[in-house]
């Protein structure tokens, strides 16, 4: 089962390994990203960042959808990690279990506006966010589990 779906453009890093993983009793980190799934160097780098005792799966977005909808994933406590709003939309369209999405970190870039300390969004992101909200999915901003949830609709 999916314990948390998180958008974080650093994917696996300190906050994920040291706070979310123990706080939620995660036993499987699933990185859903088309580019990383094809990049052996990035896969190796994420492997080094993985906390011990936790399984790390790195799949393309379509493969992640297939795996999440398969009974094989049911016994895992999964932290699903994506690095963009676009990818999370693709996943939430196909995986009914995703009813809440954590916005952990999206760094600023050209054309993006900052809506909280760790989250910057483009116009395209905002359009997708509004669609997700229309579907009734909870969108909350927290870097670490002890932060107070900020609802994204109050930040746009």
């Amino acid at each position: 089962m999916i314990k948390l779906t998180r958008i974080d453009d650093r994917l696996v890093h300190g906050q994920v390994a040291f706070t979310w993983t123990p706080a939620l009793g995660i036993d499987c980190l699933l990185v859903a990203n088309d580019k990383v799934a094809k990049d052996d160097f990035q896969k190796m780098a994420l492997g080094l960042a993985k906390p011990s005792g936790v399984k790390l799966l790195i799949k393309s977005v379509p493969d992640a959808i297939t795996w999440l909808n398969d009974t094989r994933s049911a016994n895992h406590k999964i932290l699903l990690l994506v690095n963009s709003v676009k990818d999370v939309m693709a996943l939430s369209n196909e995986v009914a279990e995703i009813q809440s999405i954590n916005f952990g970190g999206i760094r600023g870039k050209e054309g993006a506006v900052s809506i909280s300390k760790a989250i910057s969004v483009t116009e395209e992101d905002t359009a997708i966010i509004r669609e997700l909200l229309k579907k009734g999915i909870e969108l909350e901003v927290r870097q670490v589990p002890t932060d107070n949830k900020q609802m994204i609709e109050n930040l746009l």
Partner: protein
Amino acid sequence: MRKFLIATHGALAKGAQSSLDIIIGATDHVFIIQAYLDGNKSIEAELLAVMEQVSPSDELVIFSDLLGGSVNNQILKFALRENVHVVSGFNLPLLIEVILSDASSPIVEIIGSAIERAKEQIVYVNNLMTIRPNEDEDD
């Protein structure tokens, strides 16, 4: 209540606290002492000020930078108190693990296992960098 003190030569303590703020979020009950930033003064008064905020029913875990350093040496006399625990040579993984640990678990066990795990974090990364394609096991 469990309280923490990071005590170092110079500004390492504040830097460590800044890293903790980023990785695990703001933490309560973490004191810092930065020795000799401001001349060659003893940290005695600062230590006493921290101790005043630690009641007999509290536990205090002190992280110092160097075993045998003057900071740790000045801390030693407080380590005789039953509710004070001193760990020297801390690193960031150790701080994270101890500070995030369950407050109801015994501190002696937490410190023991956190030290073992923190040692495992000191690795020669180059030796780990072996790229293995198609390693994704599925079930």
